[in-house]
């Protein structure tokens, strides 16, 4: 039996996407549009799954309650735009084009681009195992990128949009400046190209990692315990990263899905507090503005930082830090 995702994507491709491409005279993109349709369907399913898992957690185990949740609505917009539209387009079409062209050019010059399956032929025909191995490698790449984005002042000027949210929920994972996303995509895509990820696995890897990252942003009093919490990033672990004391250059808990890299490089903070979230150096627009206003504010902060006119805070201790309000409005 055909995979239901394939069935839905095939229907969309046959009855919606391809007829539109034909009308527009864009049939040369017909083949790639099929891939986009499939990953858009996966993206929509992922949003639904994320909603089904995280909504009950946030309802019954909230860290904080807010009378006005309008700032969360902007994050919902980010998520749908990213996961159903832009992400499938960039991760499939962009990555596919880049990989096929680059690898073929290298092959022409006698350089056969490496893949895990070539290094370990046993993996050929075992897509689940190769998928998980690639996921680990890419998660490590994400750890490095995330750490650098906090270290470089100009990059953090963009990344502060993500940290500015004081009402952090599972929708907050995608609230990023477009330039920050672009940098992240180039980094992630380059690493994926270098290690030979299959173009049909790449968008799925992104979606899987993003699903777990959404969970880690949930406004839920959820810890995975002393053992499992060291295998997978929990909402509590990642919340520490979003504490006001962890915004900016001195931060902790950079890991997206696996806490292993933080443990390995000494940046893990497993303290038990559920801190408040936000970035005191970010403008109110970055915290609670609409989508376009936030994008504009992000650019302004970048320009100001490049000019040296920033309000970069003094280094703070890790986690919530002294004087940082723990988010204990709800009882555990």
């Amino acid at each position, binding site marked *: 039996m*055909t995979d239901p995702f394939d069935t839905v994507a*095939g229907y969309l491709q046959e009855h919606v996407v391809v007829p539109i491409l034909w009308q527009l005279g864009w*049939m*040369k993109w*017909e083949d790639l549009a099929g891939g986009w349709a*499939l990953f858009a369907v996966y993206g929509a399913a992922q949003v639904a799954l994320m909603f089904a898992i995280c909504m009950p957690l946030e309802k019954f185990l909230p860290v904080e309650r807010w009378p006005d949740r309008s700032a969360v609505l902007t994050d919902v917009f980010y998520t749908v735009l990213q996961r159903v539209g832009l992400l499938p387009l960039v991760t499939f079409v962009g990555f596919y084009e880049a990989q096929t062209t680059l*690898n*073929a050019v290298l092959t022409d010059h006698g350089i056969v681009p490496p893949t895990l399956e070539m290094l370990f032929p046993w993996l050929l025909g075992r897509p689940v195992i190769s998928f998980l191995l690639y996921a680990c490698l890419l998660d490590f790449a994400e750890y490095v990128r995330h750490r650098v984005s906090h270290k470089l002042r100009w990059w953090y000027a963009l990344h502060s949009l993500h940290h500015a949210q004081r009402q952090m929920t599972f929708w907050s994972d995608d609230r990023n400046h477009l330039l920050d996303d672009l940098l992240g995509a180039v980094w992630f895509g380059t690493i994926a190209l270098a290690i030979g990820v299959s173009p049909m696995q790449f968008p799925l890897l992104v979606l899987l990692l993003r699903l777990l990252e959404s969970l880690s942003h949930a406004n839920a009093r959820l810890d995975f315990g002393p053992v499992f919490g060291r295998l997978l990033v929990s909402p509590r672990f990642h919340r520490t990263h979003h504490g006001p004391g962890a915004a900016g250059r001195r931060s902790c808990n950079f890991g997206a899905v696996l806490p292993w890299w933080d443990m390995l490089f000494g940046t893990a903070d497993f303290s038990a507090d559920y801190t408040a979230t936000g970035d005191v150096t970010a403008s109110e627009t970055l915290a609670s503005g609409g989508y376009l206003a936030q994008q504009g504010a992000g650019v302004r902060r970048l320009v100001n930082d490049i000019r040296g006119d920033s309000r970069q805070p003094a280094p703070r201790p890790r986690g919530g830090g002294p004087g940082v309000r723990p988010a204990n409005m709800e009882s555990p």
Partner: protein
Amino acid sequence: MKTVRLSLVLAMGLVPALGFAQPLGFVLNSDSASISLIDMATHRPVGEVPVLRQPHHITRAPDGRFVLVGDTVGNQILYLDPRTGRVVRRQTISDPYQLMFSPDGRLLTITGLARNQVDIYRYDDRTGLTLWHRVPARSMPSHTAYAPDSSAVYVSLQGSNRLMAIATGTGAVLWDARVGETPAGVLWNDGALLVGLMGQDGIAVVDPADGQVRRMIKTGRGAHNLFFSPDDRLIYVTNRVAGTISVLDRATLRVVRDYRVPGGPDDIEFAPDGTLWITQRFDHGVLFLDPETGRFSRVDVGRSPHGLFLNTDQTTHRTAFP
């Protein structure tokens, strides 16, 4: 002239069963990195061959010992035993999208859709492929056809709405002409080239001397690929967007019948029992069409099935009519 280094890697026992009672059909699942092996008698999948990344097209070697599969993103040509589906060897070749042997069996033309190049190889069943000419092309070279005497190869350029002619002896571009929106499949028929136009609703009849379009024949939206029937009387045209297959009288080029074929019909092969095997790109299946009744059955395969090959006793079906 550059000789491509062969990497002849013995197969690693990827297909468990090596003795099939019935001849096999090979279906290339472009987006799930595999080749489905289908029992031609029962129409049931009996095995699957994993490939590295993205197989698109398949062709039989002139001596019949191998079928060659192009894995585009994997940058490999796989040589398979047509009786068992076993991978006998692999050869590193950049971006092998469409691949077709010349009528005289001495050359193999491979289009590099992503690389915008056309490679013409000399083929030897012992050493494999040796690069003979590399010809830069405009955007997205996809399908090919040869002149009956193998002196020229014609390549559709999907991204630039053109068809180019290359002299196989010298690698020189003879002409490069606009033929219509998003050209795909090409066929030489009775001194003319027939070109499927994906962005239009039919095929162009092109003069092989200069690439000028002599006339258009309406078949259906998204005309994609063209195939001669085994009895040489008909030409079948898959219309991807319309979801139909048009049948043309080969002599008059008049449409004599249309079949409704859902799921994005792409390539066609003809089984000895008269059944047409058709890959369905959108529906992830192979459809078995009875041309007499127009009825069909289908079987699920992998994602986005594209190239197709049936291991029948007949030689590779005709690709050019003088």
